[in-house]
């Protein structure tokens, strides 16, 4: 729709939409059907081989400011090719993003790039905008963690959130462990060398590539048998026939022989229940239990799964099967009345769904301005409002010149929304 792209209502330019994930960043323009670029969230300093991750929560503000500034500079001037001063920004973020990271990111945008306004949009809420429905149970399987948040009538039900650190990072670690333990490397001169002797540490990019190209999630029956064989206590359980081995070439001279049994068993960590009996599937049931009773049926029949880890082949099928199996357990069947689960297929790949929701919202030029934090507000207040911090007054107060805010603003907000 070229007309929509170049002329907004009132001639305002289209906003840019950025989804800063821990592993990949999706960036593009509002109103489009997909992000322009999906790039790894890291920057490379000249002379250093190791890339620096952009989304880090444990470093001090100065370093984070420099890293974010460099990264956003690359986004604007190499990928989006627009002037920062002209366009509003929509940032898709996780609800659990630490405030200090948000503050630093806002400071980079306002002080360094002088954007007109910034809007922080929660990823779970944006995901349901791509479907045209008002309520859904959204599960975001990302790199660092899997986070489930129900959204009822377009409002996130914050007390019912559930999360587990089972995501791409955990899979990489597990896969790396298996590769180093069980696999061998052939070089020009030798065969059957151990990985540690041949190449030392396997870089994470290679592990990620092996995961994407060779691994998959088995279906429920097969997966349960694999788990039994792993935690084999009495020595009788037998593992189902493993898939074929793969000869994976590393940098032209070396070949890594990946054992077939790794290909299907590495993903079981997502569904194995740990000591607290939690897995990716129980998250959804635990969330449902926490939600109010009258919302449960609507939510269980509107499941949405987003995030890069959900794109693994066989993941969705296995997830549904696991949920249906687990709901029969007494822990859940006593509490949950409805046992029907249905899952949505958003009009975008799972790793871009939250981005697409943000792009749809960013195209609503009538209200984007009023819902964003403008640069004037930021310069006056010095900080952005956060859902967990109730002491910032709403932006409308600043524009009523001469009217002092009523004294009730300073009281505890417990009775108000």
């Amino acid at each position, binding site marked *: *729709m070229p007309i*929509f*792209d170049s002329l907004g209502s009132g001639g305002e330019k289209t906003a840019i939409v950025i989804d800063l994930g821990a592993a990949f960043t999706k960036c593009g323009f509002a109103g489009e*059907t*997909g992000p322009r*670029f999906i790039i790894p969230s890291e920057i490379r300093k000249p002379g250093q081989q190791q890339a620096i991750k952009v989304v880090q929560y444990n470093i001090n503000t100065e370093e984070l400011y420099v890293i974010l500034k460099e990264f956003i500079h690359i986004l604007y*001037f190499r990928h989006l090719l627009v*002037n920062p*001063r002209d366009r509003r920004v929509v940032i898709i973020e996780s609800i659990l993003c630490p405030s200090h990271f948000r503050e630093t990111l806002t400071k980079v945008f306002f002080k360094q790039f*002088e954007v007109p306004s910034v*809007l922080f949009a*929660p990823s779970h*809420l944006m995901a349901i*905008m*791509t479907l*045209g*429905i*008002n309520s859904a149970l959204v599960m975001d399987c990302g790199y660092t963690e899997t986070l489930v948040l129900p959204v009822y*009538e*377009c*409002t996130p039900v914050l007390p019912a959130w559930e999360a587990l650190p089972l995501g791409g990072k955990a899979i990489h670690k597990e896969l790396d462990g298996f590769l180093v333990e069980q696999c061998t490397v052939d070089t020009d001169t030798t065969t059957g060398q151990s990985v540690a002797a041949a190449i030392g540490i396997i870089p994470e990019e290679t592990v990620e*590539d092996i995961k*994407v*190209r*060779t691994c*998959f999630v*088995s279906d429920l029956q097969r997966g349960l048998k694999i788990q039994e064989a792993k935690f084999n206590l009495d020595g009788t359980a037998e593992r189902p*026939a493993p898939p*074929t081995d793969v*000869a994976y*070439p590393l940098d032209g001279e070396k070949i890594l022989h990946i054992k077939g049994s790794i290909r299907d068993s590495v993903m079981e960590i997502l569904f194995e229940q740990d000591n607290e009996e939690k897995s990716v599937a129980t998250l959804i049931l635990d969330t449902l239990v926490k939600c109010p009773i009258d919302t449960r049926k609507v939510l269980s029949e*509107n*499941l949405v799964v987003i995030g890069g880890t959900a794109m693994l082949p*066989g993941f*969705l*099928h296995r997830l*549904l099967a696991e949920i249906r199996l687990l709901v029969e357990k007494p822990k859940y069947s006593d509490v949950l009345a409805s046992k029907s689960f249905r899952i*949505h*297929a958003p*009009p*975008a790949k799972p790793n*871009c769904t939250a981005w*697409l929701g943000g792009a*749809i919202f960013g*195209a*609503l*030029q*009538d*209200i984007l301005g*009023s*819902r964003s934090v403008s640069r004037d*507000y930021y310069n006056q207040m010095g900080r952005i409002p*956060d*859902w967990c911090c109730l002491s910032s007054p*709403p*932006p*409308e107060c600043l524009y009523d010149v001469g009217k002092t805010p*009523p004294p*009730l603003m300073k009281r505890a907000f417990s009775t108000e*929304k």
Partner: protein
Amino acid sequence: MASLLQPDRVIYLVRGEKRIRASLSQLYFCRYCSELRSLECVSHEVDSHYCPSCLENMPSAEAKLKKNRCANCFDCPCCMHTLSTRATNIPAPLPDDPTKTTMKKAYYLACGFCRWTSRDVGMADKSVASGGWQEPENPHAQRITKLIEYYQQLAHREKQERDRKKLARRRQCMPLAFSEKYGLGTRLQRQRAGAPISSLAGLSLKEGEDQKEISIEPAQALDEVEPLPEDCYTGPISLPEVTTLRQRLLQPDFQPAGASQLHPRHKHLLMKRSLRCRKCEHNLSKPEFNPTSIKFKIQLVAVSYIPEVRIMSIPNLRYMKESQVLLTLTNPVENVTHVTLTPCDDEDPDDINSTAKVVLPGKELVLAGKDAAAEYDELAEPQDFQDDPDVVAFRKSNKIGFFIKVIPQKEEDADVTVSFKIRHDFRNLAAPVRPSEEGGGGAGGAAAAAAVSEAVWLTHQVELRLGPLAP
């Protein structure tokens, strides 16, 4: 000895919002503010777009329409190299006589690096050399457009309600305070920026005010998801046919898993950047429009305005012993420049890195102007400056070499650093002619023009890194 000329040996301090230390070759000089600027304290702007392979300039409106991609050039989806168009002759039936065949030219795309061709993904050969190749369209595009239209209608409704409320609110002040105290009513309706985005659903289309209502079918959830095919568990996989993550992410709309679905994309453009001072909004650097030209229309770089200090030779430095270091000072402008060097105060807050004391020549150093024709003009008489041989080692056109004395203060110092302030006069030729001179009339105007550019004294702090102490 070339290591003495490395850019990080001599550092100038930029006093912007933050203290930035950089070599003079990386800094800009704002003539209007008379201050040094670094890349971090200027605002960057996109100047022009161009394609990196065909070097064709693209006006920004066209770039926006084509999504910042070149119309003619393609990238290989496998290795990201630029694709070239190749032609073959294929037999094709004549339009008049189906039985006879004639040779026609057919074009296909091929990569010179990884040998990928457009025939690998099933793209038919085209009969025109350029312009025949189309990128596939996103299958969900229509649904997304409908969703956007629907939400735009809700948003329009919200805006109307907000405007109506704003007008209504101004009239009544007292009831507002009351309702805030007792009711959750107005609070709920006020949107707090930063709070989780509340619903547009509250403004549903139940109050059918509009004639043209766009309603949307909510998405239907599925009961069953397709399972993995059986041969996934038992069959072999051929790695060259499975796309890597990087290849998939180059096509965000499709992200195909099989290499036979990787279609080439148009090449992404690059852009030229212009820099602007944040304080006075003047351009500091503006490149040429033409992509093949590397020159600049405006280029206010620091090396062409500020005298540059370079290290020429360092003797062995010893702890607490005075050594003489030879430095050179180059004058980039055409008029004679007077330079004074002063040491930093003990309590200077900007002076954080120096580990040695420095004794500077007390006298003012005079630098001759840069004269481009001087090297060709052998009969020119050298200008006579009375140079103190203790201070000035040599003089050559616009450059002098002078001595400073350094006393390292730290034992076991890995990098002896000294800093001092350099004060020089700067004539601002960009300054507009003052009205009092203009009153002097045309005849006096020419003479006045020379005197109009007043000398401004600028001070910069310079840091020198002299390397480790001699063992």
